[in-house]
Structures are given as C-alpha cells and as structure tokens.
C-alpha cells in the first residue's frame, strides 16, 4: 500500500515494476494513469494547474486505498497524484492494484479512481488562450460512486 502526493513526474513503468519486484504471489496487475489532454470541450488547452489541499489529500487517498483493501483481496496497491502546473501529454496521476485474479484487480482500480475523482481534494484549472477556467465536476463522476454502495 502506498500514497504519494507530489509535484514531480513519476515513472509509471518503474512504479509497476517495483510493485511486483521479487514477488511470485501476484496473478493480476492493473494500472490506470490519467494524462493531460490538449483539448477540453472542443477548445485547445495549453496547460493545467492542479490545486490541492495538503494534509487532507494524503488522508483522503489513504482512506480510499484502505477501503479498497477491505473490499478486495489485494496483494499491493499504489496511488500517486501530482499537483502544480502540468502541460498537455503530462501524467496527472496513477493507481495500481495487484491481486490473485483479474476481476478483483480491475474492480479495485475502478473503485480507487471513482472515489479519488469525487472525494480527494484536487481541483483542475485549464489554461485556454489567455484565460483559465476551473474544470466543473461531472455529474457522471458522482453517479459513478453509486456502483459501490
């Protein structure tokens, strides 16, 4: 288990390799990574600023990760989320889950993403032309949580 909140980029491949290094008890490893796109709603995006709530962020992510471990038999998991300025193509965040079988690993990764989206205190501001715009939360993100209740 692990949670990292950082401004620096991360090496997805190295993180996944570290998660299973020296282990022979993992059957399925799932990863998700979120990337900055160059358009939003048809408008070109020149970059993004990710604000967060230091202290609460780590606490919220750790709670979400712990909840995933009570719901699925996970051998390992990892959440990394960046903050600060990001450019199109940059990695925003990643989650990884390891389990015996694929169903648990997939479901736990989707659970982590759904809760992280609506419950971890991050806010995206997209730079569009000379201006900038706070990203609105999507109704579908809140609805996604109903799957896990």
């Amino acid at each position, binding site marked *: 288990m692990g949670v990292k909140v950082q401004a620096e980029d991360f090496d997805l491949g190295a993180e996944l390799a570290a998660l299973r290094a020296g282990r022979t008890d993992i059957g399925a490893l799932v990863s998700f990574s*979120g990337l900055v796109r160059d358009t939003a709603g048809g408008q070109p995006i020149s970059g993004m600023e*990710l*604000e*967060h*709530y230091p*202290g*609460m962020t780590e*606490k*919220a992510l750790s709670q979400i990760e712990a909840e995933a471990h009570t719901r699925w038999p996970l051998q390992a998991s990892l959440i990394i*989320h960046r903050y600060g300025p990001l450019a199109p193509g940059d990695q*925003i*965040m990643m989650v990884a889950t390891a389990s015996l079988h694929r169903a648990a690993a997939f479901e736990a990764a989707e659970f982590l*993403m759904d809760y*992280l*989206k*609506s*419950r*971890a*205190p*991050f*806010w*995206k*501001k997209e730079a569009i032309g000379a201006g900038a715009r*706070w*990203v*609105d*939360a999507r109704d579908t993100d*809140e609805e996604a949580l109903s799957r896990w209740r």
Partner: protein
Amino acid sequence: MDVLYFAWVRERVGLPREAVETEAATVADLVAELSAREERYAVAFSDMAAIRVALDQELADLDAPLQGVREVAFFPPMTGG
C-alpha cells in the same frame, strides 16, 4: 479557528486561509456570519449547492457542528484524477 478556501472559492474570497473568531454553532451559521460580514464572502457562498465543506480535513455537511473543530475548509466539488 482556521478557515481555508480552495479553487474558485479561494479566488472569490481573495485569500487562501485566515483565522476567524466565531461563536457559530454550525457550518451554516459560519457561512451566514461571513456572508453578512463582507460582499466577497456573500459572492463566494451565493450557491451553497456548489460548495463542499471539510472539518479538520474530513468531508462534512452544512449542518455539522463546529464545536471542537480547529480547521474548516470550503471548496468546489473535487476534480482530481
């Protein structure tokens, strides 16, 4: 009590955090008190359906009591991931 603001709530209030002296019993009482104090708070809190609240870094409701709370945070719905 420390009051924190994030994202567009921070921009509308005009600062990221401040110490507030208050006898407000609940979050809603605190919002009403701040909104009555200055226009910028009234603007920031004009649509409370678009505001989320955390008490000591845990999500809470508007009617949650403030007794014993050291840190209150106001922010829009989260958009991480």
